[in-house]
């Protein structure tokens, strides 16, 4: 355990834990758009920037992103110093110029008193904040179907060569994790489309309810050692089946007693 000061309060944190976790545990809210528990910290949005110093730093201060800065003994952290607020406001202002319609950004900016960007709006702006969560979760899950392409201001998220990604299994994790709902997909209960690819859904043999895509199920069978027949029913049919099985056992027991 280490002891540090956050906004004047002495707090204890686990060694190796990130500053952001300790800050949030204190109930302090700071924006952090590229952070998600499922993936490694990344440090792209810089919104979680905080000011740090130590008693023996001779007044020297530093700005670090709390999502990937490990807690340290004796660290003195301010989450809302003047400099930090200025950084956060500028970043939100810049974000708004690129993603004026992204609700997430609008709300965060509003909290910092910004309703419109003070910069020139980016002509081809969209809702993607380039947090990289989608590509990172896709990597983490082992598919690596999509990635960021290009660099600089023209960077974007796309499947390789801009074509339907061969490694995609249609799990929708990217669309689910996207903080601005930028990744579009359709699902009519029979087929699912995402990234320009169509996937057939597995249907429950009993209820006809769709579950996950055939490709995703096949992946789990192959790489995660899940028996194939687990996927033949939906969750509610599984429960019914369990109840019936248990009923059979119990009923059978009662008859014996009688």
């Amino acid at each position, binding site marked *: 355990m280490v002891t540090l000061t956050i906004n004047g309060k002495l707090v204890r944190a686990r060694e190796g834990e990130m500053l952001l976790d300790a800050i949030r545990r204190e109930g302090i809210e700071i924006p952090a758009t590229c952070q998600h528990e499922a993936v490694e910290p*990344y*440090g*792209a*949005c*810089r*919104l979680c*920037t905080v000011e740090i110093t130590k008693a023996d730093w001779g007044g020297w201060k530093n*700005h*670090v*992103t709390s999502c*990937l*800065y*490990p807690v340290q003994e004796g660290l003195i952290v301010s989450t809302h110093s003047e*400099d930090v607020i*200025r*950084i956060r406001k*500028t*970043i939100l202002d*810049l*974000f708004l*110029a*690129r993603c004026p319609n992204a609700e997430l950004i609008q709300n965060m900016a509003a909290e910092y008193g910004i309703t419109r960007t*003070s*910069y*020139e709006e*980016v002509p081809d702006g969209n809702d993607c*904040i*380039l947090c*990289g969560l989608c590509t990172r979760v896709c990597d983490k899950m082992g598919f690596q179907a999509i*990635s*960021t392409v*290009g*660099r*600089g*201001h*023209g*960077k974007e998220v796309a499947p390789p060569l801009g074509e339907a990604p061969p490694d995609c299994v249609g799990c929708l994790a990217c669309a689910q994790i996207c903080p601005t709902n930028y990744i579009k997909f359709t699902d009519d209960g029979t087929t699912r489309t995402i990234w320009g690819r169509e996937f057939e859904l597995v249907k429950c043999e009993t209820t006809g309810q769709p579950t996950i895509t055939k490709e995703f199920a096949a992946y789990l069978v192959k790489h995660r050692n899940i028996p194939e027949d687990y996927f033949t029913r939906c969750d509610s049919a599984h429960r019914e089946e369990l109840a019936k099985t248990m009923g059979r056992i119990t009923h059978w027991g009662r008859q014996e007693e009688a």
Partner: protein
Amino acid sequence: MCITSSRQLKQVRKEFLDGDARFEKKVMICCGTGCLANGAQEIVDEFDSILRKKRIKGFTIEAVRSTGCHGFCEQGPLVIIEPRGTFYTKVKVKDVADIIEKSIRSDEVIDKHLYTDPATKQKIERYPDVAFFSHQQRIALRNLGKIAPHNIKDYIANGGYQSLAKVLTTMTPDDVITEVSKSGLRGRGGGGFSAGRKWRSCADVESDTHYVICNGDEGDPGAFMDRSIMEGDPHSVLEGLAIAAYAVGAKEGFVYVRDEYPLAVVHMQKAIEDCRKEGLLGENIFETNFCFDVHIARGAGAFVCGESSALMKSVAGEVGEPRAKYVRSVVKGLHDQPTVLNNVETFANIPIIFEKGADWYAGIGTKKSTGTKVFSLVGKVRNTGLIEVPMGITLRQIIFDIGGGIIDDRPFKAVQTGGPSGGCLPESKLDLPVDFDSLTENGSMMGSGGMIVMDDRTCMVDVAKYFTDFLVKESCGKCVPCREGLYQLHKLLVKISEGRGEESDIDRMEQLSEVIVNASLCGLGQSGPNPLLSTLKYFRDEYTAHIRDKRCPAGVCRELITYNITDECTGCMACISACAYHAITGQKKKVHVIDQEKCTKCGACVAACRFNTIDVR
């Protein structure tokens, strides 16, 4: 054959020099990329084909050496005849027969191939007397232009691999690091971090695996110092790398070469293979326990891949994006193992430090910035090219003594150092000693050694705009302050250069810059506003002129200038036919007029006018 001792190295050296003693003369033909582009290979081929037909006493094709870059590319192809050092510039294939006849069979000097000093208009015969070379001190470039880079024996004949032999057989890793620290060598790739300290931190990390990497990404536009070293003297880089590997306990090393440098890859690869053959790479080098091998990693062609964490990701086959370095790469670098990354030039300095001693090296340059630095001197100076000078030399000496002053004797305006995220220094800073700290203190930086000289016809707003645009495109796009911030900074600069600027824009740019510097993830973003901030610092009035007076004092920003024909016009009509937009009207021998409505400010008329009567302001 395997070389296993210092004695054997000496033997190789002796054999090579004995072989050379057969020749009365030797010819060095520069085959650096610049000279190759101008036909150097054809010249080598011509020597070959003539010498096949003709026998000359004390001279064969073996005495013709294709060397690495001499640095004076604009005068290429260069041919030097040793032992006199006769220096022929801009040699063509058809000149070869003449050179063989006159300068090799006899001792005649062919005047028309000699270099003319632009200042004195005098012909200069020997290359050490050429001002461009005479003010230099070549340490990292010591072998460039002297040896054939693809011949390991030539390198050994010049003392090569003796330092490695000495290090491996007589010194402990600890001694090696102490020696490097004592030399005061600081990294030449940009940051200027002490090489000894870096090695020490890496060596101190307990791990089974350590790596050493040579950074040959060199993404700065116009820079070619690392390329020239890798092409012209690959073995000194390898020797430096091997010494570093021994010091930190690495068994594997990488040379990361920018993808645009195919010749560097070829020469580096050949050097590595030759070393393996001679036993200078591989198992039990010099019959010690030291085992080390080197691989080439090809760059991804992005400026940001030169950044240490991005480079290591790229070497590992991932997307070359920087990561936050709250844990430094000497502790957790390539494949999360402790890693030393140094620049090409840094490594090229290592062997000579062990040859001549750390004290000797520390005696060159200034106290805090020891040794020399290679610069690529370009822009509006008479002599452009690759130069190496001791630290502490002034900008004036570089620009006026080596560079020969400004072209057409126009006034000097600024010099940009440090690559795209460096800064511009004005005339008042010409006597600034060039070293890591003084450049940084004055708002610029050493960077990897780009140096662009600008004259009075350069607009500083335009310069800031150009470099900011470069950085917007080269930013990896990962973090917001850099990706969006630099983009907006560039937009504001465009606005100002187009005459739409407002007084408040300067403040806005300064505030935004501060956030970009403080909040960006890697060095690119953190230093990205430098071009803007340094020009604002020294040329603020130029910004005000653009904003308040809607005027570009240097006559560069299109939206703010007009072309007018003055009364001195002779009426030659040359400009009329040069203008593709039919904006110029007039009769023979009468003053012509430019129709401002039609003029697109392309400048074709200025180029066509022989009497300098078109006024741009």
